[in-house]
């Protein structure tokens, strides 16, 4: 809890700004990265933003808590992304979702034809039974529907 609070802007403003030593370190990391790659700092910012955007398409992330940093290893630079995932996205894009259909755990989410058939067939009592039995381990029935339509 404290760890979380420590990183919030509220904490930073309440307890003074981030130390200038840490700011220097981060600014240098960024400027050296662009020196090494011959990329302008704003290009690096754009890279970070787009990276998070792509991740956010698949999983629900907390962009405020996401960290994309660069680290100087022995001889080369490494890009490290730490992105806290809140949950798997309910409205994943359809094209990549088909790819995950091969994955066993996600299979039931990506078989809309079969679901529709089953839904049409039974009496009004059936859906409550049918939907959960499809193995929606990842999301409640309501969100299950939307993911199938997506």
């Amino acid at each position, binding site marked *: 809890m404290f760890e979380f609070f420590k990183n919030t802007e509220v904490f930073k403003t309440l307890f003074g700004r981030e130390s*200038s*030593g840490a700011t220097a370190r981060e600014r240098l990391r960024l400027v050296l990265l662009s020196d090494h790659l011959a990329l302008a700092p704003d290009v690096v910012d754009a890279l970070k933003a787009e990276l998070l955007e792509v991740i956010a398409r698949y999983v629900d992330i907390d962009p405020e808590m996401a960290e994309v940093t660069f680290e100087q290893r022995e001889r080369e630079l490494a890009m490290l992304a730490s992105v806290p995932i809140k949950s798997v996205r309910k409205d994943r894009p359809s094209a990549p979702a088909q790819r995950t259909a091969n994955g066993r755990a996600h299979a039931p989410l990506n078989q809309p034809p079969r679901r529709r058939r089953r839904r049409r067939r039974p009496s009004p009592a059936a859906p409550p039974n049918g939907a959960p039995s499809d193995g929606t381990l990842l999301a409640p029935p309501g969100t299950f529907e939307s993911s199938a339509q997506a």
Partner: protein
Amino acid sequence: MSARRIVVTSGKGGVGKTTTTANLGAALAKKGRRVVLVDTDIGLRNLDLVMGVEKRIVFDLVEVVEGRCQLRQALIRDKRFESLKILAAAQTRDKTAVSEEQMDKLMGELAKSNDYVIIDCPAGIEHGFRNAVAGAREAIVVTTPEVSAIRDADRVVGKLREREIPLQLIINRVRPEMVKAGEMMSIEDVGEILGADILGVIPDDEGVIDTTNRGEPLVLDETQKLAAIYGRIARRLEGEDLPLTDLDPPSVFSKFFTMWKAG
């Protein structure tokens, strides 16, 4: 046996290349090593002034290269350390007066009769830098814990790696109390950012200005706080397994405790 040929470089000016060259050289000479310090900052020489030999220059590096004098005629013997010599840069010429090949040959010549050839490199990464580096087989990169110095040091580190010259860092003018307060980058931060081993850490100290004013290497005066630190760097350079100087300032509490014990 041939000498170690070490270039002291930094990219940025004013971070302490010349002071480091002078004091590291003196510290090694104090240990009995045969050391020659070479100023390659043609047109902007200063090592002579820091070493206090500015009035004794007869011939300079360019005159040696141009064959106007013998190499031994241009070497200024230090009056305090028997085994320490200085080769001054030319003041009225420019960096293009010497080529990389000439510099390499000259340093090779000096290496024959010494244990250490320490080359004081000019600031920048142009002609003067290339010349100084051409004569060296290893490097010491001096930086301070400031963003501009580190960025420039990073450029130099890249250039040295292109040439496959092994390098170590000296982090100069560290202010431990500021590091502790988070207002200055730590030694670890600097080492990590530059991705290089640290040879030495030197705190900011008024003694440097005081001794430079007089043209005396600081290591000569045992009462100087930095004398022991340069001595330690010299030992680490020679391969001794010593930890880096611990710059942690004593806490207010421990100071009080010491005063109480003493009083």
